[in-house]
Protein backbone atom coordinates (compact mmCIF):
# COMPACT_ATOMS: atom_id res chain seq x y z
CA UNK A 1 0.00 0.00 0.00
CA UNK A 2 1.40 3.37 -1.01
CA UNK A 3 1.82 6.02 1.65
CA UNK A 4 1.80 9.81 1.26
CA UNK A 5 4.00 12.49 2.84
CA UNK A 6 4.32 16.24 2.70
CA UNK A 7 7.70 17.48 1.52
CA UNK A 8 7.11 21.21 1.18
CA UNK A 9 4.65 23.93 2.13
CA UNK A 10 3.88 27.60 1.78
CA UNK A 11 1.40 30.08 3.16
CA UNK A 12 0.72 33.77 2.65
CA UNK A 13 0.07 36.04 5.57
CA UNK A 14 -3.64 36.01 6.33
CA UNK A 15 -5.56 39.26 6.36
CA UNK A 16 -7.13 41.89 4.16
CA UNK A 17 -4.92 41.95 1.10
CA UNK A 18 -6.41 44.88 -0.80
CA UNK A 19 -3.27 45.05 -2.91
CA UNK A 20 -3.14 41.40 -3.95
CA UNK A 21 -5.34 39.41 -6.29
CA UNK A 22 -6.46 35.80 -6.07
CA UNK A 23 -3.79 34.80 -8.55
CA UNK A 24 -1.02 36.68 -6.75
CA UNK A 25 -1.89 35.08 -3.43
CA UNK A 26 -1.94 31.52 -4.73
CA UNK A 27 1.23 32.07 -6.75
CA UNK A 28 2.97 33.28 -3.60
CA UNK A 29 1.94 30.24 -1.54
CA UNK A 30 2.55 27.83 -4.39
CA UNK A 31 6.02 29.09 -5.19
CA UNK A 32 6.99 28.93 -1.52
CA UNK A 33 5.75 25.34 -1.33
CA UNK A 34 7.61 24.20 -4.45
CA UNK A 35 10.82 25.94 -3.38
CA UNK A 36 10.68 24.54 0.14
CA UNK A 37 10.20 21.03 -1.25
CA UNK A 38 13.46 21.38 -3.10
CA UNK A 39 11.86 20.19 -6.32
CA UNK A 40 11.39 21.79 -9.71
CA UNK A 41 7.99 22.89 -10.99
CA UNK A 42 8.29 20.29 -13.72
CA UNK A 43 8.38 17.55 -11.07
CA UNK A 44 4.80 18.32 -10.07
CA UNK A 45 2.50 15.86 -11.83
CA UNK A 46 -0.96 17.05 -10.80
CA UNK A 47 -2.62 19.87 -8.89
CA UNK A 48 -5.68 20.09 -6.66
CA UNK A 49 -7.00 23.47 -5.60
CA UNK A 50 -9.58 24.05 -2.88
CA UNK A 51 -11.67 27.19 -3.16
CA UNK A 52 -15.19 27.65 -1.94
CA UNK A 53 -16.92 30.49 -3.72
CA UNK A 54 -14.54 32.03 -6.25
CA UNK A 55 -17.51 32.32 -8.61
CA UNK A 56 -19.13 34.79 -6.25
CA UNK A 57 -16.05 36.35 -4.70
CA UNK A 58 -14.12 37.10 -7.91
CA UNK A 59 -16.48 36.05 -10.73
CA UNK A 60 -14.11 33.22 -11.58
CA UNK A 61 -14.73 29.48 -11.72
CA UNK A 62 -12.22 27.05 -13.22
CA UNK A 63 -9.62 28.09 -10.64
CA UNK A 64 -7.77 24.76 -10.76
CA UNK A 65 -6.66 25.64 -14.26
CA UNK A 66 -5.98 29.22 -13.18
CA UNK A 67 -3.63 28.07 -10.41
CA UNK A 68 -1.71 25.69 -12.67
CA UNK A 69 -1.43 28.49 -15.22
CA UNK A 70 -0.15 31.07 -12.71
CA UNK A 71 2.43 28.62 -11.38
CA UNK A 72 3.53 27.78 -14.93
CA UNK A 73 2.59 24.12 -14.43
CA UNK A 74 0.60 23.47 -17.64
CA UNK A 75 -0.23 20.93 -19.01
CA UNK A 76 -0.55 18.94 -15.76
CA UNK A 77 -4.06 17.98 -14.64
CA UNK A 78 -5.50 20.72 -12.42
CA UNK A 79 -8.70 20.20 -10.49
CA UNK A 80 -10.71 22.46 -8.25
CA UNK A 81 -12.48 20.79 -5.38
CA UNK A 82 -15.16 22.50 -3.35
CA UNK A 83 -16.88 21.43 -0.17
CA UNK A 84 -17.59 24.88 1.25
CA UNK A 85 -15.28 25.80 4.15
CA UNK A 86 -13.84 22.26 4.00
CA UNK A 87 -12.59 22.78 0.44
CA UNK A 88 -9.00 22.88 1.65
CA UNK A 89 -9.29 19.67 3.64
CA UNK A 90 -10.97 17.95 0.72
CA UNK A 91 -8.21 19.20 -1.59
CA UNK A 92 -5.70 17.55 0.74
CA UNK A 93 -7.64 14.33 0.60
CA UNK A 94 -7.87 14.52 -3.21
CA UNK A 95 -4.11 14.90 -3.51
CA UNK A 96 -3.64 12.05 -1.05
CA UNK A 97 -5.88 9.70 -3.05
CA UNK A 98 -4.29 10.74 -6.33
CA UNK A 99 -0.89 9.61 -5.06
CA UNK A 100 -2.28 6.45 -3.50
CA UNK A 101 -3.92 5.61 -6.84
CA UNK A 102 -0.46 5.18 -8.34
CA UNK A 103 -1.13 7.70 -11.10
CA UNK A 104 1.18 10.32 -9.60
CA UNK A 105 4.14 10.49 -7.23
CA UNK A 106 4.26 14.25 -6.65
CA UNK A 107 1.17 16.41 -6.33
CA UNK A 108 0.62 20.06 -5.41
CA UNK A 109 -2.35 20.94 -3.22
CA UNK A 110 -3.47 24.53 -2.84
CA UNK A 111 -6.22 26.28 -0.95
CA UNK A 112 -7.31 29.86 -1.43
CA UNK A 113 -10.02 32.38 -0.89
CA UNK A 114 -9.96 36.02 -1.94
CA UNK A 115 -12.88 37.46 0.02
CA UNK A 116 -12.38 41.22 0.18
CA UNK A 117 -12.99 42.07 -3.46
CA UNK A 118 -16.69 42.18 -2.66
CA UNK A 119 -18.52 43.99 0.13
CA UNK A 120 -19.59 42.33 3.37
CA UNK A 121 -23.13 41.84 2.09
CA UNK A 122 -21.98 39.97 -0.98
CA UNK A 123 -19.49 38.00 1.10
CA UNK A 124 -22.30 36.90 3.42
CA UNK A 125 -24.35 35.69 0.45
CA UNK A 126 -21.34 33.85 -0.97
CA UNK A 127 -20.73 32.15 2.39
CA UNK A 128 -24.44 31.40 2.73
CA UNK A 129 -24.01 29.00 -0.17
CA UNK A 130 -22.31 26.63 2.27
CA UNK A 131 -25.63 26.00 3.98
CA UNK A 132 -28.92 25.10 2.39
CA UNK A 133 -30.03 27.94 0.14
CA UNK A 134 -33.62 26.73 -0.10
CA UNK A 135 -34.41 25.94 3.53
CA UNK A 136 -31.93 28.06 5.49
CA UNK A 137 -30.62 31.15 3.73
CA UNK A 138 -34.04 31.77 2.13
CA UNK A 139 -35.55 32.16 5.59
CA UNK A 140 -32.90 34.61 6.76
CA UNK A 141 -30.60 32.15 8.47
CA UNK A 142 -27.15 33.67 8.12
CA UNK A 143 -24.17 31.46 8.69
CA UNK A 144 -23.63 32.69 12.26
CA UNK A 145 -27.32 31.98 12.90
CA UNK A 146 -26.81 28.28 12.12
CA UNK A 147 -23.95 27.98 14.58
CA UNK A 148 -25.93 30.04 17.07
CA UNK A 149 -28.68 27.41 16.93
CA UNK A 150 -26.10 24.78 17.84
CA UNK A 151 -24.61 26.97 20.56
CA UNK A 152 -28.01 27.64 22.17
CA UNK A 153 -28.82 23.95 22.21
CA UNK A 154 -25.41 23.07 23.64
CA UNK A 155 -25.93 25.61 26.43
CA UNK A 156 -29.40 24.25 27.13
CA UNK A 157 -28.36 20.61 27.11
CA UNK A 158 -24.97 20.75 28.82
CA UNK A 159 -24.91 24.04 30.68
CA UNK A 160 -22.20 25.47 28.45
CA UNK A 161 -21.82 29.20 29.12
CA UNK A 162 -21.12 32.19 26.91
CA UNK A 163 -17.98 32.74 28.96
CA UNK A 164 -16.75 29.26 28.11
CA UNK A 165 -17.25 29.96 24.42
CA UNK A 166 -15.47 33.27 24.87
CA UNK A 167 -12.53 31.34 26.31
CA UNK A 168 -12.00 29.73 22.90
CA UNK A 169 -11.67 33.13 21.30
CA UNK A 170 -9.37 34.46 24.03
CA UNK A 171 -7.06 31.45 23.69
CA UNK A 172 -6.94 31.61 19.91
CA UNK A 173 -6.25 35.35 19.87
CA UNK A 174 -3.46 34.67 22.36
CA UNK A 175 -1.96 31.98 20.14
CA UNK A 176 -2.27 34.23 17.08
CA UNK A 177 0.00 36.74 18.85
CA UNK A 178 2.75 34.16 18.41
CA UNK A 179 2.05 33.57 14.71
CA UNK A 180 3.53 36.21 12.43
CA UNK A 181 1.22 35.19 9.58
CA UNK A 182 -1.99 35.60 11.60
CA UNK A 183 -4.60 38.22 10.74
CA UNK A 184 -4.96 39.47 14.32
CA UNK A 185 -2.21 40.34 16.73
CA UNK A 186 -4.32 41.56 19.58
CA UNK A 187 -4.93 39.94 22.95
CA UNK A 188 -8.55 39.93 23.99
CA UNK A 189 -10.26 39.08 27.27
CA UNK A 190 -13.42 37.20 28.09
CA UNK A 191 -14.93 40.58 28.94
CA UNK A 192 -14.07 41.91 25.49
CA UNK A 193 -15.90 38.99 23.92
CA UNK A 194 -18.87 39.33 26.27
CA UNK A 195 -19.15 43.04 25.53
CA UNK A 196 -18.92 42.64 21.75
CA UNK A 197 -22.38 42.89 20.19
CA UNK A 198 -24.56 39.95 19.30
CA UNK A 199 -24.42 38.84 15.68
CA UNK A 200 -26.83 35.98 16.31
CA UNK A 201 -27.40 35.28 19.98
CA UNK A 202 -25.66 33.72 21.85
CA UNK A 203 -22.81 34.37 19.37
CA UNK A 204 -21.17 37.76 19.51
CA UNK A 205 -18.86 39.50 17.10
CA UNK A 206 -15.77 38.15 18.87
CA UNK A 207 -17.14 34.60 18.70
CA UNK A 208 -16.92 34.77 14.89
CA UNK A 209 -13.97 34.24 12.60
CA UNK A 210 -13.23 37.15 10.26
CA UNK A 211 -13.37 37.72 6.50
CA UNK A 212 -9.86 36.94 5.27
CA UNK A 213 -7.76 36.79 2.12
CA UNK A 214 -5.11 34.12 2.00
CA UNK A 215 -3.66 31.06 0.34
CA UNK A 216 -1.74 27.98 1.42
CA UNK A 217 -0.09 25.11 -0.44
CA UNK A 218 1.64 21.82 0.26
CA UNK A 219 3.62 19.46 -1.93
CA UNK A 220 2.75 15.80 -1.42
CA UNK A 221 4.96 12.90 -2.41
CA UNK A 222 4.76 9.14 -2.24
CA UNK A 223 6.56 8.32 1.01
CA UNK A 224 9.39 6.09 -0.21
CA UNK A 225 10.27 8.68 -2.84
CA UNK A 226 9.78 11.48 -0.28
CA UNK A 227 12.46 9.96 1.92
CA UNK A 228 14.93 10.27 -0.95
CA UNK A 229 14.04 13.89 -1.70
CA UNK A 230 13.50 15.28 1.73
CA UNK A 231 15.25 14.94 5.09
CA UNK A 232 12.14 15.17 7.19
CA UNK A 233 8.99 14.31 5.25
CA UNK A 234 5.77 14.61 7.26
CA UNK A 235 3.72 11.48 6.72
CA UNK A 236 -0.05 11.72 6.37
CA UNK A 237 -0.97 8.68 8.45
CA UNK A 238 -4.71 9.12 7.98
CA UNK A 239 -6.97 11.07 5.66
CA UNK A 240 -10.69 10.73 6.22
CA UNK A 241 -13.81 12.55 5.19
CA UNK A 242 -17.51 12.22 5.97
CA UNK A 243 -20.79 13.98 5.24
CA UNK A 244 -24.03 14.87 6.97
CA UNK A 245 -27.29 16.45 5.80
CA UNK A 246 -26.78 19.84 4.19
CA UNK A 247 -29.45 21.52 6.31
CA UNK A 248 -28.87 21.73 10.04
CA UNK A 249 -32.51 21.00 10.83
CA UNK A 250 -32.22 17.50 9.37
CA UNK A 251 -29.31 16.40 11.57
CA UNK A 252 -29.83 13.70 14.14
CA UNK A 253 -28.47 16.05 16.79
CA UNK A 254 -27.76 19.77 17.02
CA UNK A 255 -25.08 19.27 19.64
CA UNK A 256 -22.99 16.65 17.92
CA UNK A 257 -21.20 17.04 14.59
CA UNK A 258 -21.67 13.58 13.19
CA UNK A 259 -19.55 13.97 10.04
CA UNK A 260 -16.58 15.07 12.11
CA UNK A 261 -17.15 12.26 14.60
CA UNK A 262 -17.22 9.65 11.82
CA UNK A 263 -14.15 11.08 10.07
CA UNK A 264 -12.17 11.26 13.34
CA UNK A 265 -13.11 7.73 14.36
CA UNK A 266 -12.03 6.36 10.99
CA UNK A 267 -8.80 8.35 11.07
CA UNK A 268 -7.86 6.99 14.49
CA UNK A 269 -8.69 3.43 13.39
CA UNK A 270 -6.62 3.86 10.26
CA UNK A 271 -3.61 5.20 12.14
CA UNK A 272 -4.13 2.83 15.08
CA UNK A 273 -4.06 5.76 17.45
CA UNK A 274 -6.29 7.27 20.10
CA UNK A 275 -7.14 10.92 20.74
CA UNK A 276 -4.71 10.93 23.68
CA UNK A 277 -1.87 10.11 21.26
CA UNK A 278 -2.30 13.43 19.49
CA UNK A 279 0.17 16.14 20.48
CA UNK A 280 -1.71 19.11 19.00
CA UNK A 281 -4.74 19.78 16.83
CA UNK A 282 -5.79 22.44 14.38
CA UNK A 283 -9.59 22.44 14.44
CA UNK A 284 -12.28 24.37 12.60
CA UNK A 285 -13.27 27.23 14.93
CA UNK A 286 -15.27 29.31 12.45
CA UNK A 287 -17.29 30.17 15.56
CA UNK A 288 -16.24 29.53 19.14
CA UNK A 289 -18.94 26.88 19.58
CA UNK A 290 -17.44 25.06 16.59
CA UNK A 291 -14.18 24.46 18.46
CA UNK A 292 -16.11 23.08 21.43
CA UNK A 293 -18.07 20.77 19.12
CA UNK A 294 -14.81 19.79 17.40
CA UNK A 295 -12.90 18.72 20.50
CA UNK A 296 -15.92 16.70 21.61
CA UNK A 297 -16.34 15.04 18.20
CA UNK A 298 -12.65 14.17 17.97
CA UNK A 299 -12.71 12.80 21.49
CA UNK A 300 -10.28 15.09 23.32
CA UNK A 301 -12.94 15.48 25.98
CA UNK A 302 -16.27 13.97 26.86
CA UNK A 303 -19.40 14.95 24.97
CA UNK A 304 -20.86 18.09 26.48
CA UNK A 305 -17.70 18.95 28.40
CA UNK A 306 -15.96 21.03 25.74
CA UNK A 307 -16.85 24.32 27.45
CA UNK A 308 -15.31 23.64 30.86
CA UNK A 309 -12.43 21.75 29.24
CA UNK A 310 -11.54 24.92 27.35
CA UNK A 311 -12.17 27.25 30.25
CA UNK A 312 -9.78 25.18 32.39
CA UNK A 313 -6.98 25.81 29.90
CA UNK A 314 -6.65 22.22 28.79
CA UNK A 315 -6.54 23.25 25.12
CA UNK A 316 -4.00 26.04 25.68
CA UNK A 317 -0.55 25.93 24.15
CA UNK A 318 0.85 24.44 27.36
CA UNK A 319 -2.30 22.46 28.14
CA UNK A 320 -3.22 18.80 27.98
CA UNK A 321 -3.96 18.95 24.26
CA UNK A 322 -3.01 22.23 22.56
CA UNK A 323 -5.77 23.22 20.11
CA UNK A 324 -5.31 25.84 17.42
CA UNK A 325 -1.83 26.88 18.38
CA UNK A 326 -1.69 28.74 15.06
CA UNK A 327 -4.44 31.04 16.27
CA UNK A 328 -7.11 29.01 14.52
CA UNK A 329 -9.71 30.46 12.21
CA UNK A 330 -10.57 33.07 14.82
CA UNK A 331 -7.10 34.46 15.37
CA UNK A 332 -5.16 33.47 12.27
CA UNK A 333 -8.05 34.25 9.94
CA UNK A 334 -10.36 32.18 7.77
CA UNK A 335 -9.93 32.45 4.00
CA UNK A 336 -12.42 29.62 3.63
CA UNK A 337 -10.90 27.57 0.81
CA UNK A 338 -7.38 28.01 2.22
CA UNK A 339 -8.13 27.00 5.79
CA UNK A 340 -7.86 23.23 5.46
CA UNK A 341 -4.54 23.48 3.66
CA UNK A 342 -3.24 26.09 6.11
CA UNK A 343 -4.01 23.65 8.93
CA UNK A 344 -1.74 21.10 7.23
CA UNK A 345 0.95 23.76 6.89
CA UNK A 346 0.76 24.48 10.62
CA UNK A 347 0.98 20.74 11.31
CA UNK A 348 4.17 20.55 9.24
CA UNK A 349 5.73 23.56 10.96
CA UNK A 350 4.99 22.07 14.37
CA UNK A 351 6.21 18.59 13.42
CA UNK A 352 9.44 20.05 12.09
CA UNK A 353 9.92 21.91 15.37
CA UNK A 354 9.94 25.25 13.57
CA UNK A 355 7.00 26.96 15.24
CA UNK A 356 9.22 29.13 17.46
CA UNK A 357 7.23 30.81 20.22
CA UNK A 358 4.13 28.74 19.57
CA UNK A 359 6.01 25.42 19.33
CA UNK A 360 4.30 22.48 20.98
CA UNK A 361 7.01 20.60 22.86
CA UNK A 362 8.02 17.23 21.39
CA UNK A 363 5.23 17.29 18.86
CA UNK A 364 5.14 13.96 17.02
CA UNK A 365 1.50 13.55 15.99
CA UNK A 366 -0.73 16.37 14.73
CA UNK A 367 -4.39 16.43 13.77
CA UNK A 368 -6.28 18.72 11.40
CA UNK A 369 -10.07 18.98 11.45
CA UNK A 370 -11.81 20.99 8.72
CA UNK A 371 -15.56 21.52 8.43
CA UNK A 372 -17.79 22.60 5.55
CA UNK A 373 -20.92 24.63 6.17
CA UNK A 374 -22.66 23.94 9.45
CA UNK A 375 -21.13 20.46 9.44
CA UNK A 376 -22.30 18.71 6.27
CA UNK A 377 -18.68 17.96 5.36
CA UNK A 378 -15.78 17.18 7.64
CA UNK A 379 -12.24 16.03 7.00
CA UNK A 380 -9.77 14.75 9.58
CA UNK A 381 -6.10 14.29 8.78
CA UNK A 382 -3.37 12.87 11.01
CA UNK A 383 0.25 13.85 10.45
CA UNK A 384 3.38 12.23 11.83
CA UNK A 385 6.85 13.67 12.27
CA UNK A 386 9.79 11.91 10.63
CA UNK A 387 11.44 9.28 12.83
CA UNK A 388 14.31 10.45 14.94
CA UNK A 389 13.37 14.11 14.92
CA UNK A 390 14.79 15.92 17.93
Amino acid sequence: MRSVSIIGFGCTTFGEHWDKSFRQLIAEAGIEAIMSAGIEGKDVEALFGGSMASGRFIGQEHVGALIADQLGLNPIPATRVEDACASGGVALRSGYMAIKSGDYDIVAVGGIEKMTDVGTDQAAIALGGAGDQETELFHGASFPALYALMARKHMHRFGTTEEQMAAVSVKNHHNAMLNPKAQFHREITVDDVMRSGYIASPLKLLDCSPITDGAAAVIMCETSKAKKICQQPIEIIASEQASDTLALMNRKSLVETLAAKVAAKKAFEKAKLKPCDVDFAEVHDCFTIAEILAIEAIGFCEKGKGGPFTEQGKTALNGEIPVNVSGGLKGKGHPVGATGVAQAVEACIQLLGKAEKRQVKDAKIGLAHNVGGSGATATVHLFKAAEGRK
Partner: protein
Amino acid sequence: MPDGSLPLIWRKFGERYDLDGNFCENCGTAFFPERKVCPNCRRKGKLVARKMPKAGKIVSFTEVFTGPAGFEHETPYFIAIVELENKARLLTQIVDSEKEKVKIDARVEKVFRKISDIDPEGPIAYGYKFKVVD
Protein backbone atom coordinates in the same frame (compact mmCIF):
# COMPACT_ATOMS: atom_id res chain seq x y z
CA MET B 1 -30.14 36.21 -6.89
CA PRO B 2 -31.76 32.98 -8.00
CA ASP B 3 -34.08 33.41 -5.00
CA GLY B 4 -36.12 35.86 -6.98
CA SER B 5 -36.50 33.52 -9.93
CA LEU B 6 -40.05 32.67 -10.92
CA PRO B 7 -39.52 28.94 -11.58
CA LEU B 8 -38.04 28.56 -8.12
CA ILE B 9 -40.90 30.40 -6.44
CA TRP B 10 -43.40 28.41 -8.44
CA ARG B 11 -41.78 25.08 -7.58
CA LYS B 12 -41.77 25.98 -3.90
CA PHE B 13 -45.43 27.01 -3.72
CA GLY B 14 -46.73 23.87 -2.07
CA GLU B 15 -43.85 23.69 0.34
CA ARG B 16 -43.70 27.31 1.40
CA TYR B 17 -47.44 28.08 1.32
CA ASP B 18 -48.95 24.82 2.53
CA LEU B 19 -46.14 22.88 4.26
CA ASP B 20 -46.36 20.13 1.64
CA GLY B 21 -43.90 17.39 2.46
CA ASN B 22 -44.01 13.63 2.32
CA PHE B 23 -44.12 10.57 4.51
CA CYS B 24 -42.56 7.12 4.34
CA GLU B 25 -45.22 4.50 4.95
CA ASN B 26 -42.55 1.89 5.54
CA CYS B 27 -40.74 3.48 8.49
CA GLY B 28 -43.27 6.14 9.47
CA THR B 29 -40.95 9.11 9.03
CA ALA B 30 -42.23 12.49 7.81
CA PHE B 31 -40.02 14.61 5.56
CA PHE B 32 -40.10 18.34 5.05
CA PRO B 33 -39.31 19.42 2.40
CA GLU B 34 -40.28 16.26 0.58
CA ARG B 35 -37.54 13.79 -0.29
CA LYS B 36 -37.20 11.56 -3.32
CA VAL B 37 -35.53 8.84 -1.26
CA CYS B 38 -36.26 7.79 2.32
CA PRO B 39 -32.77 7.75 3.87
CA ASN B 40 -33.86 5.06 6.34
CA CYS B 41 -35.47 2.61 3.93
CA ARG B 42 -34.09 3.61 0.52
CA ARG B 43 -35.72 1.38 -2.09
CA LYS B 44 -37.95 -0.29 0.49
CA GLY B 45 -39.34 3.14 1.38
CA LYS B 46 -42.85 4.06 0.30
CA LEU B 47 -43.12 7.81 0.04
CA VAL B 48 -46.51 9.49 -0.17
CA ALA B 49 -47.36 13.19 -0.25
CA ARG B 50 -48.34 14.59 3.11
CA LYS B 51 -49.11 18.06 4.45
CA MET B 52 -47.22 18.83 7.61
CA PRO B 53 -49.02 19.78 10.82
CA LYS B 54 -49.08 23.50 11.53
CA ALA B 55 -47.95 23.27 15.13
CA GLY B 56 -44.82 22.20 16.90
CA LYS B 57 -42.20 23.29 19.40
CA ILE B 58 -38.90 25.14 19.33
CA VAL B 59 -35.83 22.91 19.30
CA SER B 60 -33.36 25.79 19.31
CA PHE B 61 -33.44 29.48 18.44
CA THR B 62 -31.30 32.54 17.88
CA GLU B 63 -31.95 36.23 17.62
CA VAL B 64 -30.28 37.57 14.50
CA PHE B 65 -28.86 41.09 14.77
CA THR B 66 -26.90 41.14 11.52
CA GLY B 67 -29.02 39.66 8.76
CA PRO B 68 -28.10 38.65 5.25
CA ALA B 69 -29.04 40.81 2.24
CA GLY B 70 -32.80 41.18 1.97
CA PHE B 71 -33.25 40.89 5.73
CA GLU B 72 -31.41 44.03 6.89
CA HIS B 73 -34.62 45.89 7.62
CA GLU B 74 -36.02 43.14 9.77
CA THR B 75 -33.24 42.83 12.33
CA PRO B 76 -33.35 41.80 15.05
CA TYR B 77 -35.45 38.76 14.23
CA PHE B 78 -35.72 35.25 15.57
CA ILE B 79 -34.68 32.13 13.69
CA ALA B 80 -35.61 28.76 15.12
CA ILE B 81 -35.55 25.12 14.32
CA VAL B 82 -39.05 23.85 14.97
CA GLU B 83 -40.05 20.25 15.46
CA LEU B 84 -43.57 19.76 14.14
CA GLU B 85 -46.06 17.46 15.80
CA ASN B 86 -45.13 14.65 13.41
CA LYS B 87 -41.42 15.01 14.31
CA ALA B 88 -40.44 16.63 10.99
CA ARG B 89 -38.22 19.66 11.52
CA LEU B 90 -37.93 22.95 9.72
CA LEU B 91 -36.02 26.18 10.04
CA THR B 92 -38.17 29.26 10.23
CA GLN B 93 -38.52 32.79 11.53
CA ILE B 94 -40.44 33.26 14.75
CA VAL B 95 -42.62 36.36 14.58
CA ASP B 96 -45.49 38.04 16.46
CA SER B 97 -44.21 36.68 19.75
CA GLU B 98 -43.10 38.30 22.97
CA LYS B 99 -39.36 38.10 23.16
CA GLU B 100 -39.22 36.33 26.50
CA LYS B 101 -41.57 33.63 25.26
CA VAL B 102 -39.21 32.55 22.50
CA LYS B 103 -37.41 29.67 24.17
CA ILE B 104 -36.55 26.03 23.74
CA ASP B 105 -39.66 23.82 23.93
CA ALA B 106 -42.06 26.75 23.47
CA ARG B 107 -45.14 25.73 21.44
CA VAL B 108 -45.43 27.44 18.05
CA GLU B 109 -47.79 27.49 15.11
CA LYS B 110 -47.60 28.47 11.50
CA VAL B 111 -48.47 31.91 10.14
CA PHE B 112 -48.17 33.16 6.57
CA ARG B 113 -45.91 36.11 5.79
CA LYS B 114 -43.68 37.86 3.31
CA ILE B 115 -40.24 36.31 3.74
CA SER B 116 -37.90 38.89 2.25
CA ASP B 117 -37.33 41.41 -0.47
CA ILE B 118 -34.13 40.00 -1.83
CA ASP B 119 -34.93 41.08 -5.35
CA PRO B 120 -36.77 44.40 -5.13
CA GLU B 121 -37.70 44.28 -8.80
CA GLY B 122 -38.69 40.66 -8.84
CA PRO B 123 -41.62 38.83 -7.37
CA ILE B 124 -41.94 38.90 -3.60
CA ALA B 125 -41.20 35.67 -1.78
CA TYR B 126 -43.91 34.59 0.63
CA GLY B 127 -44.01 31.60 2.92
CA TYR B 128 -44.40 30.26 6.40
CA LYS B 129 -43.17 31.76 9.62
CA PHE B 130 -44.14 30.60 13.08
CA LYS B 131 -45.36 32.32 16.24
CA VAL B 132 -45.33 31.24 19.86
CA VAL B 133 -48.70 30.16 21.25
CA ASP B 134 -49.29 29.96 24.97
